[in-house]
């Protein structure tokens, strides 16, 4: 535990170091300023750097942390983790033609993913074509997932273990955005390659949508010849915040092969709502997301694989100090709290007609310091209760995380 204290104090000392990076060649790009920013704008609403007059903007973010966790008294000791480093490049090919790509390196080079690589063509602000590798806009986190935007080291459980976080696929679709007075509205609709049978055949031993990401072939071909549809509508008001409704669905099983019918078409559908607002008087930010998953699991498989799942999270972030800290003029010190819950199986046991458990409840109080808008230092404490399929006494996990996430 002494190491944690030493690291924490070291962290406080290190933040006094001022940045040495300054270049006349690099300048910050102009962000989307049409009406209120929506989650759908997150892909471009990043601190890109433009190289002189070249039509290329570059950027990225990285996040790393220290972690000490124990589950029922047993842990892996002290850990440093390089969660991810992401690079993005944006190019204005021509007027109203732009291309953006996002490449992520997770845990060093353990996973390298092209999360986004798409051409956007603007016909009007309400009608844009997007084609390439698209990030499916289910709920809010999937689109708006950059680490520096969040006060928490871990991504929300519902976004990573119920829904497939940063789930991207090759395909195409339309999106648009409009605004009137205090209101903004947007829509997105894409058809992509997508699901596969890993949803019910995975190492998690439960219905697990994130397992679909294991299929790297999805960028080359559809697993079953069916397309995944994703759509989202958003409505935002400058006083009340943004509200989003989204749906993603398609066939996940290999229902035919080489001309032979193997099974009926089995669907997996996700419905989600998301909401974010800022209470202007208190400057309190609230982000919430809730999702329902419905999967057509064969009755002859095992009820261990749930047909219905639910889950979501609420983040509340309260600035407690704004001002100069260690020479950073616009520092913000936040207190934050995340509450999250996921139930991977809303079913009942055939044998007893009693509820199946398989759920998790987690709370994460946090303190974060933002010396600039693009960088966040975090101190998180997570406590969670995870109940197994049968509803046995939950395993309890406590974790302390100290980390940093920054755009560069």
């Amino acid at each position, binding site marked *: *535990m002494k190491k*944690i*204290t030493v690291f*924490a*104090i070291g962290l*406080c000392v290190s933040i006094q170091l001022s940045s040495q990076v300054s270049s006349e060649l690099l300048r910050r790009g102009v962000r989307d300023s049409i009406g209120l920013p929506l989650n759908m704008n997150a892909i471009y609403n990043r601190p890109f750097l433009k190289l002189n007059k070249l039509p290329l903007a570059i950027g990225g973010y990285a996040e790393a942390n220290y972690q000490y966790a*124990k*589950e*029922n*008294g*047993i*842990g892996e000791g002290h850990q440093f983790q390089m969660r991810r480093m992401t690079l993005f490049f944006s190019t204005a090919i021509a007027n109203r033609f732009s291309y953006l790509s996002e490449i992520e390196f997770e845990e060093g080079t353990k996973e390298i993913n092209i999360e986004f690589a798409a051409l956007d063509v603007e016909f009007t602000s309400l009608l844009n074509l997007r084609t390439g590798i698209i990030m499916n806009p289910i709920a809010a986190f999937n689109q708006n997932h950059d680490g520096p935007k969040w006060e928490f080291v871990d991504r929300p459980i519902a976004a990573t273990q119920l829904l497939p976080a940063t789930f991207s696929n090759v395909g195409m679709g339309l999106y648009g955005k409009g605004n009137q007075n205090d209101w903004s509205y947007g829509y997105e609709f894409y058809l992509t390659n997508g699901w596969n*049978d890993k949803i*019910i*055949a*995975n*190492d*998690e*031993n439960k219905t697990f949508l994130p397992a679909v990401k294991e299929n790297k072939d999805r960028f080359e071909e559809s697993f079953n010849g069916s397309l995944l549809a994703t759509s989202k509508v958003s409505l935002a008001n400058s006083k009340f915040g943004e509200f989003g409704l989204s749906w993603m669905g398609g066939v996940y*099983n290999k229902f035919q092969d080489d001309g032979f019918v*193997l*099974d009926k078409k*089995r669907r997996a559908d996700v419905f989600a709502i998301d909401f974010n607002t800022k209470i202007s008087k208190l400057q309190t930010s609230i982000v919430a997301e809730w999702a329902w998953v419905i999967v057509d699991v*064969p009755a*002859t*498989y*095992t*009820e*261990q694989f749930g047909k219905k799942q639910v889950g979501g999270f609420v983040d509340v972030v309260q600035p407690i*100090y704004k*001002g*100069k*800290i*260690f020479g950073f003029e616009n520092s913000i*010190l936040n207190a934050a709290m995340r509450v999250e819950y996921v139930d991977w199986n809303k079913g009942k*046991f*055939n*044998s*007893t007609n*009693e509820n199946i*458990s398989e759920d998790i409840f987690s709370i994460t109080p946090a*303190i974060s*310091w933002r010396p600039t808008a693009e960088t966040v230092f975090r*101190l998180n*404490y997570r*406590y969670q209760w995870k109940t*197994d*399929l*049968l*509803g*046995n*006494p939950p395993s*309890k*996990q*406590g974790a*302390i995380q*100290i980390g940093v996430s920054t755009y560069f």
Partner: protein
Amino acid sequence: MNKKINSVVGVLVAACVLVVSCAKLFPKAPEDDAVLDGPVEGLTAEQKAIFIRGDVAFNDEIFTPEKGLGPLFVATSCGTCHAGDGKGHPFTSLIRFGQTNSLGNQFLNQGGPQLQNRAIPGFLPEQIPIGSTFSKFLPPATTGLGFLEEVSDATLLSLSDEFDANGDGISGRPNWISIPSYVNIRRDAIIQNGKYIGRFGRKAAVYDLRQQTANAYNQDMGISSNFETIDTYSGQVVDAEVANKTIHDVVGYLQTLKAPIQRNISNQEIISGKQIFIETGCGKCHTPQLTTGYSSIAALSRKQISPYSDLLLHDMGSGLDDGYTEGSALSSEWRTTPLWGLGLSKQSQGGQYFLLHDGRAKTIEKAILLHGGEGAQSKNAFQQLNAQQKSQLLKFLESL
């Protein structure tokens, strides 16, 4: 401004110190006697390594169609049936069918002896063939199995009284079984007409933990091995879908799981309850103490254990006779279930009891009252107890 900075730094440092100095923020490990899992004390470094590998294979390895699951199966992992190494839940009951007497299973060509009641997509699970009787077996606890494996055949025979020579109404006998070629025959094995003494499973029809493990992979998950080579779906010899080493590791894990530890042993109510347990004759089958023989695992060798079982078959009466059996057991005969760990069963069964071979008893008292045959005397004695005595007996059983 300096004050402000100092305040902020103070808040941060205080938060860090508070967090790291408060051990209560991290959940404590449960006491050894509060859980069933965990290794036996005194293992060598090599045995600990095997335990850890076996633990991972047993509890974490999930079989999928890609990894060989099925196509017909009951569960997708060992841990699915044995959560926390405790008793199982009706969700993973094993349904056995096709044998009514010692002449063997008459339905082996129709999927016997075990029903694979689940199937991967595109396949249909088995149905119980018309004309076949069946029984449901709840997965047993896996703790302490290594100790039970090391009890000598001679000890078991010394406890048996097949023809009730002492006239106490209890006539335990071993299940004489045929064994597969891959089991490790005990150095002190007692053989009768080419048959060996079985000791694992509800009918004591399994010789050792290797047979139990290879059978479970094959019959429960549809995973073939070099020990059990036949695919349960096609009936064909197929390539092994699990490595020999994994089987060995899992066997090593099961052998070295600790024996359940009795709790509140000095509590007067529990001491009285144990006395009542003996006086009502429960201990005649649920033998309180056994001693293991020599074991190559020193931690298991020549140890006194308290499984509360004689590992023998007893006639439990018509009420518990499902018309199905294994080996030379009668369909009304059941191996005495070890009672150690009984009080912790709820922690692995979803917060409630599912007792007896098929989980039909939801309380310990109900389980006692369902005893018939050789167990009828003890059941009657239990019914004669006053409320305080019953309470003491039940507290004792829950302490196991």
